[in-house]
């Protein structure tokens, strides 16, 4: 950094010749380029580390969960009610941790441009049903009303089924998480014609706490949180929307939201109905 300061000072030194100042400027420029390249390299290494460590964390977690399920199912002998409760806690915690590790792995792969989609023709209604079933018990536990409506004319989308389930899971998970007991969450899908192509518009909405307008862009950014205390209250990695946006964009779609504080949130995203050229 000292060298660059000296070079910059020389470049600004009005008593020096124009040639000398230009040469000093060029030196400073080269130095800045080297620093940028080095920082980018370090960022790539860090992202790769994150991807590697997340992948390696999955395997021992698999062992913990499977051993605990063997105990739970009485394969090594019957458990008492309290032992059951305790083992169920290990399994529940393990599965939640596995989800979070998976989320970090997806984020890291996305950041390293290693995320790929394997698209095929997918019926949106099937994926919504899959995600609805996965969240059924959580919805019931919070006494929420979950409404699903897929218009009859919604065509198949050209999407990676697993990634679409991931996007929907993240959005619906947030909707459930940020909606107080007794509230309403919904998933709607409609056909939509945009300027040059047909798409399907999917809306995931809730009657929850809402998001102020000046935070609408911020919440899609990694490492950014609207309210740090909110993330502590509403668990998770805080990467869900960043990942959702990246996955939607990989499909050639768009994602946005409409929301106000205290007025609930409506997240929208589009998916193409035909193979992208």
């Amino acid at each position: 950094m000292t060298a660059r300061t000296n070079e910059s000072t020389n470049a600004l030194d009005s008593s020096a010749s124009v040639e000398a100042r230009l040469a000093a400027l060029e030196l400073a420029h080269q130095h800045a380029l080297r620093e940028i390249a080095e920082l980018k390299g370090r960022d790539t290494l860090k992202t790769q580390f994150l991807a590697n460590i997340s992948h390696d964390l999955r395997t021992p977690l698999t062992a913990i969960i499977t051993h605990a399920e063997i105990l739970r199912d009485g394969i090594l002998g019957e458990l008492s009610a309290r032992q059951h409760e305790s083992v169920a806690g290990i399994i529940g915690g393990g599965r939640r941790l596995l989800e979070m590790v998976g989320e970090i792995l997806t984020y890291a792969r996305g950041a390293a441009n290693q995320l790929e989609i394997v698209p095929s023709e997918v019926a949106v209604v099937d994926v919504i049903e899959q995600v609805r079933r996965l969240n059924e018990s959580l919805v019931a536990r919070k006494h929420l009303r979950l409404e699903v409506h897929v218009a009859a004319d919604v065509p198949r989308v050209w999407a990676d089924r697993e990634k679409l389930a991931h996007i929907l899971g993240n959005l619906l998970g947030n909707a459930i998480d940020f909606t107080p007991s007794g509230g309403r969450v919904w998933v709607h899908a409609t056909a939509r014609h945009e300027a040059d192509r047909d798409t399907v518009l999917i809306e995931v909405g809730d009657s929850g706490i809402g998001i102020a307008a000046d935070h609408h862009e911020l919440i899609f950014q990694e490492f950014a949180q609207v309210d740090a205390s909110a993330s502590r209250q509403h668990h998770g990695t805080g990467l869900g929307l960043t990942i959702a946006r990246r996955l939607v964009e990989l499909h050639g779609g768009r994602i946005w939201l409409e929301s106000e504080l205290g007025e609930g949130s409506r997240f929208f995203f589009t998916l193409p109905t035909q193979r992208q050229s």
Partner: protein
Amino acid sequence: MTKEETRPLVLIVDDSPHVTGPLRILFEETGRRVVVADSIDSAVRACEAEHVDLMLLDVTLPDGDGLSVLEILRDRPALPTVTVALTGHDDDLTVQRCRAAGCRDVLLKPVPVRDLLRHAAEWLPERVASA
């Protein structure tokens, strides 16, 4: 024939003891014999040593693509009766690849124990009844 020899043989192919350890306990405690292999090479040798009724196969092994075990044993008596892939990803491409290679099912790790036992009863029907 001794009782030991009539029990179905399960071959678990995975290079991590974190995966093979609990699966060995699960299958041995429910009336099956278990052999573990940690590479393509050792999996092929295990299949050649004794007929395998069920092979649980990780698709990513230290010496290459796990599915090549099926490729090597294709049309040979040493080919296991049933092969099921255990993977970290169940995207459409992986599922298609595993099925094309001859896998009966493709399961995402960690497979819930209840699902695994239910599937095992389908994969090893007659032997389970006598176990």
